[in-house]
């Protein structure tokens, strides 16, 4: 193998406080919440 990139990190980059057990459904739900309110883009995550 001829490496073109570094090896992957053993963990994913996340900010402190991110929910490490977050599953896909939760992620989708968050996305939908954002989408639903985005016509009032300001305050989507309030």
């Amino acid at each position, binding site marked *: 193998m001829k490496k*073109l990139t570094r090896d992957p990190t053993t963990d994913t980059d996340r900010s402190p406080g991110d929910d490490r057990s977050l599953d*896909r459904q939760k992620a989708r739900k968050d996305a939908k919440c954002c989408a639903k309110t985005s*016509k009032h883009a300001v305050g989507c995550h309030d």
Partner: protein
Amino acid sequence: MKPSAHNLFARVPGKEVWLIANPLYGTADLLSREEAAAYKARTFEDDGPWARRGYLVDPDEEAERFNAAYLAFLKEREQEELQLFYAPTYACELDCRYCYQDGYRAAEAAPPEVLASFFRYVDQTFGNRRKYLTLFGGEPLLKGDASRRTVARFLASAAKRGLETAVVTNGYRVSDYLDILRGARIREIQVTLDGLRAVHDARRPLKDGGGTFDRIVAGVDQLLAHDIPVNLRVVVDRENIDQLPKLAELAADRGWTAHAGFKTQIGRNYELHHCSRSPEALFDRLSLAAHLAALIEELPTFKAFHAPAFHFARHLGETGAMPAPVFDACPGAKTEWAFDYTGRIYSCTATVGKLDEALGTFHPEVRLDDDRVFEWQDRDVLAIDACRDCGARLVCGGGCGAVAKNRQGSLLAPDCRPVAEIGALGAPVYLPLDEGDDSKKNPPPPPTRGCSIK
């Protein structure tokens, strides 16, 4: 351990080299024939290089990484700069052979109140977001005082808010607008040249048949002379692909290529809303990429005029890293919106002006169809069933929503891209390949035929 669901694997055409990449793990490697055979035979060791490089994974760990990457993608998109298009008209003086808007009606100019309503809507809806505006059409730079007044008012209103404006124009009347453009906050002017004079004028003539090439070239000269950035677009198919090296030469001779404010894009002529008059002339994505790779192999200096992305290959070669995973390639109604002089709101430039695609209005009253907006905003590779088991999904991102809808009748359908194969075509252009065997070079795929628009 099992092979990652996100491995991209393809032979570099004409070479004894294979490319493997994984956008989720951010890795890419070149493989020998023996290594490629081992990969295809799935003869892996759990603690060997395949696992260290993220091509052989623990499915649970991969699922967790996928979720984290998805959240990171969503979070990053919330910070992305919005692009807000405004079409002051659908009229145009040109009769381009492949125009996708040729069935649009071009009504009289809008009253000034519509523009005021547009900026009020921008202030109220996108107030705190980073954004820039783009004048679109139709053709925004038309002949006459009424059009000049509209453009001047638009640019002044944008500047008052500290917003930059891009202009997508056929370039025919750039010179007539130079006085207005010089004093404005212009991000770039996109103009289109499809070849040297004879070819360009045959593809993009005036409605009366007259040529447009000379005025457009003069306009680009003038824009760059005033340090107004130019994005030169070339719309290509099999009938003008041979013009690319000639345009590169023209750009170099006129000093465009050397100007810091000059860049290019190659647009593929394709069927968006209706069938092409010359379907046999159209490239599919892979065949266009093959032609561009062959062109650069023959003429390496072409890259100074245009350096194709080949999906992830250019980024990989330039940075030594894979691009971040793309869970959604469609910006429509997310980071892109389009508005027109009738007061309607649309998802993007592919839908703007199609009445049945309107998502609402900003004039005379503000009204959005929440359900239709949600359809667009819901679309990503998790929502599209057909993307669920596709290894290419984190580069392809599900493709264009408007194309998917036109071809398959649903926004929640994919507009697939052969990303591994296109990435491999870009490998000789951007990646450090060892000398390989050129004797079995693959010819470009045959042309696509027939229309896929429903």
